[in-house]
């Protein structure tokens, strides 16, 4: 039966059909739905781990124990898991182990752009790349077979457009039966205990494995030649295959389902059958560099060091317009005359971003107001940033919804790097002797992810850092996943709800308070007091995300009293989408009065608390008003 599935759903179906029994991951766009889908299948175990490193160790542990296992993460998650990634490549496993890396070219929701095929090459493990959802399912199944055949972890490299594009997939209601591949847990230190003496013996083994894999790649069914016109041959894989078909409908194509290691003979044969050979791939010249290293002639023959990518851009995701334009600029396709049309001024291998669909065909003559993402109405993060902005302190931020605290009018974050960085970066400034006292701001899920060791460091090395943990009781940014603080597991089981305050104390921080995140006065008072003192301190600003069902039930829209409001603009400075400038002007200063959109307001009262003229009703006032009316 054919069903429309996203690439992520297809991977989950593939893993289930392949008999995977354990899957672990940490949420991260665009990977999240793989585990969410897999967790709903019968007879499987799936978990959110606190971070990707733990998730990968868990999957490795299951595969050592003879059960097929899957680990899922976004591209930067592999950075976090890299240590585990590297040893697993050395040891191999008893049963199949597949690591999904969901890359995010163009950084639709990521802090950096990286091509994780490089990780597969780095670790000498195979890299498979699907071109649509059917491929994603089939390659997932193939990846497990490959993993067991060659005793190697396999990377399944996805990208945003594969993860979040839905295409028809043949789904099978059957699951391969995969009883544990071993009766007893392996006692095989030569293979699984990576002390130097053993590791030294393993390294040549994995280099030989790589040669065997390269030989296997020659006949791997997902490396496929499609002969059409011989004038142009394209080596491609992943979503770039689709753009190749779209823009060069007549070209012959070598579609690679495995982009590492490459099938050398197949590539040479294909090169011999076409007049001109090019590589079309997203981000790094990963295939291109390898093909040139083989001594196969690509068109154009010369590339400029250090950007060895020819024809297509090295930054940002591809799309049909960029592929067409780059091909035109290189002289591969006739010029359409109006290159303006397609939007970007592509020059070969230019490191400039070429965003799709911007400054195209003059939307410019009408200046459209931007619609940036913002903290939602009722967001419990808002008050903390309003206060931090007011206190004018340097703030080292982290990754989550609360990164939006950087957006005006809150404008309260000064650095953001990767998950867990806030506390260490603030500590670094403190120990460097920076004159100002630093505040690190971190979400609950991010604190569990990589914040704990960093805070331990602050306690241990006694720095002057104030840490604010924004505990909104969920992993909001990626779609409200459970985490160790929520009391629920991925598969819906009740579990211990890890309390942050005792944990922080146990890390060695004495100065700790928990305050309701809506209580802006109390937060301000505490921070002001701490700024006058020395030593580590932690404020836990706790209130559940306003989008969670239990919070939605409490929504009450507040109201502005137009007779009391004088348009002072203070409530505008909290950056709440529910507060509007009304058409009514204040008679004295002729400033627009504030008005509240009743459909958006949740009744969090932050605006009411900051209003100096008590012009905004509190919740119980609104309720009274309506009872009396």
């Amino acid at each position, binding site marked *: 039966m054919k069903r429309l599935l996203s690439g992520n759903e297809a991977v989950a179906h593939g893993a289930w059909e392949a008999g995977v029994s354990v899957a672990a991951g940490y949420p991260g766009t665009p990977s999240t739905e793989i585990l969410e889908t897999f967790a709903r299948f019968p007879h499987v175990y799936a978990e959110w781990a606190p971070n990707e490193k733990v998730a990968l160790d868990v999957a490795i542990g299951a595969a050592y124990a003879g059960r097929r296992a899957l680990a899922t993460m976004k591209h930067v998650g592999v950075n976090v898991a890299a240590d585990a990634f590297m040893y697993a490549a050395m040891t191999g496993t008893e049963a199949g182990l597949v690591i999904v890396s969901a890359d995010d070219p163009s950084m639709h929701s990521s802090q950096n752009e990286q091509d994780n095929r490089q990780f597969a090459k780095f670790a000498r493990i195979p890299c498979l790349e699907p071109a649509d959802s059917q491929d994603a399912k089939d390659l997932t199944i193939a990846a497990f077979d490959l993993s067991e055949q060659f005793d190697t972890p396999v990377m399944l490299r996805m990208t945003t457009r594969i993860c979040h*594009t839905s295409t028809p997939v043949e789904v099978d209601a059957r699951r391969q039966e995969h009883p544990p591949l071993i009766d007893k847990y392996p006692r095989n230190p030569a293979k699984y205990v990576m002390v130097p003496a053993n590791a030294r013996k393993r390294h040549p083994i994995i280099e030989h494995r790589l040669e065997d894999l390269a030989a296997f790649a020659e*006949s791997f069914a997902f490396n496929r030649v499609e002969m059409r016109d011989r004038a142009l041959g394209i080596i491609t894989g992943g979503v770039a295959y*689709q753009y190749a078909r779209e823009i060069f409908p007549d070209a012959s194509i070598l579609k690679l389902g495995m982009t590492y290691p490459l099938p050398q003979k197949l590539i040479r044969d294909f090169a011999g059958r076409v007049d001109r050979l090019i590589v079309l791939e997203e981000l790094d010249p990963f295939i291109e560099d390898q093909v040139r290293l083989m001594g196969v002639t690509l068109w154009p023959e010369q590339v400029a060091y250090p950007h060895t990518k020819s024809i297509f851009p090295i930054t940002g995701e591809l799309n049909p317009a960029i592929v067409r334009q780059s091909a035109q600029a290189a002289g591969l396709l006739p010029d359409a005359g109006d290159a303006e*049309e397609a939007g970007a001024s592509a020059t070969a291998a230019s490191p400039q971003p070429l965003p*799709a669909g911007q400054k195209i065909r003059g939307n410019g003559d009408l200046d459209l*107001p931007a619609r940036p993402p913002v903290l939602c109405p009722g967001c419990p993060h808002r008050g903390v940033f309003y206060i931090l902005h007011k206190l004018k302190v340097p703030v080292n931020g982290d990754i989550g919804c609360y990164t939006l605290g950087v957006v005006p009018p809150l404008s309260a974050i000064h650095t953001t790097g990767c998950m867990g960085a806030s506390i260490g970066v603030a500590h670094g400034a403190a120990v460097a002797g920076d004159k100002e006292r630093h505040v690190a701001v971190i979400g609950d899920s991010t604190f569990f992810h990589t914040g704990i060791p960093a805070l331990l460091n602050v306690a241990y090395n006694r720095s002057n850092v104030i840490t604010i943990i924004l505990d909104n009781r969920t992993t909001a940014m990626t779609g409200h996943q459970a985490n160790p603080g929520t009391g629920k597991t991925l598969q819906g089981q009740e579990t211990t709800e890890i309390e942050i305050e005792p944990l922080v104390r146990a890390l060695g921080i004495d100065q700790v308070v928990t305050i309701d995140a809506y209580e802006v006065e109390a937060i301000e008072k505490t921070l002001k007091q701490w700024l006058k003192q020395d030593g580590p301190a932690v404020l836990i600003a706790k209130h559940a995300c306003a989008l969670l069902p239990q919070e939605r039930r409490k929504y009450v829209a507040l109201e502005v009293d137009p007779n009391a409001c004088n348009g002072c603009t203070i409530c505008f400075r909290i950056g709440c989408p529910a507060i509007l400038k009304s058409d009514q002007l204040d008679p004295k200063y002729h400033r627009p009065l504030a008005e509240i959109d009743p459909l958006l307001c949740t009744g969090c009262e932050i605006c009411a608390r900051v209003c100096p003229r008590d012009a905004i009703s509190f919740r119980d006032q609104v309720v009274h008003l309506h009872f009396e009316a």
Partner: protein
Amino acid sequence: MKNATSSQPTTSLPPLNILLTGVGGQGTILASNIVAEVGVALGYDVKKAEVHGMSQRGGSVVSQVRWGRQVFSPIIPPGEVDFLLAFEKLEALRALHYLRPGGQLIVDPHAIPPVTVTSGDAHYPDDDAIQAKLARVTPHVHWIPGVTIAEELGNAKAANVVLLGAFSALLGHAPDQWLDVIRQRVPPKYMELNERAFRRGRELIQTERE
């Protein structure tokens, strides 16, 4: 295993390109799921692409659907959209460069001012400017007051289905296949509301034609 070497014919008819746009929370993704499933029900190859993440926090949401005998790229090039469905009029302008000159535009006159307007200095374009701008790309602008109609019917959330009704009528489709797909996608207690919303959208296109 042996690599398949196939000689395939080159592409046939170009696919039908549909782009849906709105503001986070308006049900743009749900609507595009319905469009994609209808394509499958009609026997097409279908691709539906969207971007999750930051766009959900009150930002613009765009979803692209392509129906055809064989669809390759999930992304539609600018200037090649045949049907643009906009659940908010500012978002119609923002996505306008995707529309093929002379393409069909279905747009809800509903306005959701972004924060840059409500608490900043940006200005929400006025209706004359919007209309003039749209008219420069296509004469086929169908104003469908989905939010108003859905509110009349008792639930503003059904606004997207009003526009889907209009879309089905523009395609000349009978309602049945669409309603079947909608039935699979919405909770039973909302089906009657959605069916009425869908039919109201169709009627608006039919009266346009009279």
